[in-house]
């Protein structure tokens, strides 16, 4: 057995800092996800028509679907570069449990994609003529929902690591698993818009997040071990 780590928190922090630094240095990636998010949302008024009432009605759904797609799009770079340059093998061999490492990487992914999405979302609500009552609930729902997306998507990214055409495959794996988050995220905003309490939906979103935090690391770590074999 190796000597106990004097500061058990530090390797996790280092891993998160490393991933954030990588994402920021390759800045374009993180920016691109936001631009994609905005573009998808902007397509809807052009496709559905600029009727303010209709746009206000579908705003929550459009923003959530765009957030789902943006999260999925950014997913493949979670492990891809590590897999290509061999650092994944080092991570697997390191004494830090792979499950915790996955949590660190998912946290970094959320900080570089989920958080910017939440910051941009109110602006898009404005573009889609969303009623003011919806904003606080939408932000709260996104704050609870997008970390689940990072965690669930991370499992898909780990599973499809090294596959042929992994991008398309990833969408087939991950989007069905995103559906519960989408359903409760949108219905929370709808409840907020109609003035009824969104507590139940927000609690379910929180429950989904807790479940994902507890279970996703096991599945992702098992998948990563196989990818590194």
């Amino acid at each position, binding site marked *: 057995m190796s000597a106990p780590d004097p500061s058990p928190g530090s390797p996790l922090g280092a891993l998160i800092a490393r991933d954030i630094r990588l994402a920021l240095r390759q800045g374009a990636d993180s920016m691109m996800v936001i631009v994609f998010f905005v573009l998808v949302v902007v397509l809807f008024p052009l496709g559905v028509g600029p009727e303010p009432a209709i746009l206000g009605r579908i705003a929550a759904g459009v923003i959530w679907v765009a957030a789902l797609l943006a999260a999925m799009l950014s997913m493949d770079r979670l492990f891809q570069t590590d897999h290509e340059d061999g650092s994944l093998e080092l991570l697997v061999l390191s004494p830090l449990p792979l499950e915790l490492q996955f949590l660190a990487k998912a946290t970094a992914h959320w900080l570089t994609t989920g958080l910017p999405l939440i910051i941009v979302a109110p602006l898009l609500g404005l573009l889609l003529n969303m009623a003011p009552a919806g904003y606080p609930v939408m932000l709260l729902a996104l704050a609870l929902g997008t970390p689940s997306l990072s965690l669930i998507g991370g*499992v898909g990214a780990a*599973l*499809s690591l*090294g*596959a*042929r*055409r*992994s991008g398309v*495959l990833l969408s*087939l*794996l991950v*989007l*069905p*698993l995103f*559906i519960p988050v989408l*359903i409760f995220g949108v219905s929370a905003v709808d409840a907020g818009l109609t003035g009824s309490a969104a507590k139940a939906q927000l609690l379910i979103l929180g429950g989904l997040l807790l479940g994902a935090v507890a*279970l996703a690391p096991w*599945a992702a770590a*098992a*998948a990563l071990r*196989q*990818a590194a*074999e």
Partner: protein
Amino acid sequence: MHRFANPTRFLKLISALQPWAMGISVLCLATGLYFALIVSPADYQQSETVRIMYVHVPASWMAMFCYSALAGASAAGLIWRHLTAFVVARATAPIGAAFTFLALATGSLWGKPMWGTWWVWDARLTSVLILLFLYLGFIALEGAFDDRSRGMRAAAILAIVGAVNVPIIKYSVDWWNTLHQPASVVKLDGPAIQSSMLTPLLLMAVGYTAFYFWVMFVRVRAEFNDARIQALRLRHSQA
């Protein structure tokens, strides 16, 4: 169970069971269809369309049964590294996907006259649709790697992750206020369905289950034979 991890022993077992599965399946499906389409009465509300039930309900049961088998075999393959379990999982996936599709299609055909619509986004229908995507994801992931065993193990993890959906499907009609009716056969206080309708339904269910085992056995044997042929070819090319 570990006795049958040995491919030779497993092959011997399923070769012995296959004619039985075939016989039970053909017999039950034939008598079940006879009772379902001719003997059983028409419903006092739904009239003749109630007969869709005899195809639809067992197909839905099988969709969940096959997924449970898929997840169970995947877990067994990952935990004990039994190749046979993976072969069973691979053989099960397309059959389960077909049952799921059948359940969705017949449900849609039944929904049009009863609910007035082909499709509603209620919890039961949505969760079964997700089940179909999980099957398709399993099949796609399994075939997406150059290294076959890597693909199989990745797909096995996906099957286990997706197993959370099975209880959601089962209880979706109780948890949410759905257009789809709640369970009426598998209940604690006995089935709420008349025996003239229950008999053909159960016959069909047994027939479907036997059909699954029959096709699964055929597919497993085909895969083992395929592996044998590949090995022979390899030996020939090296000689």
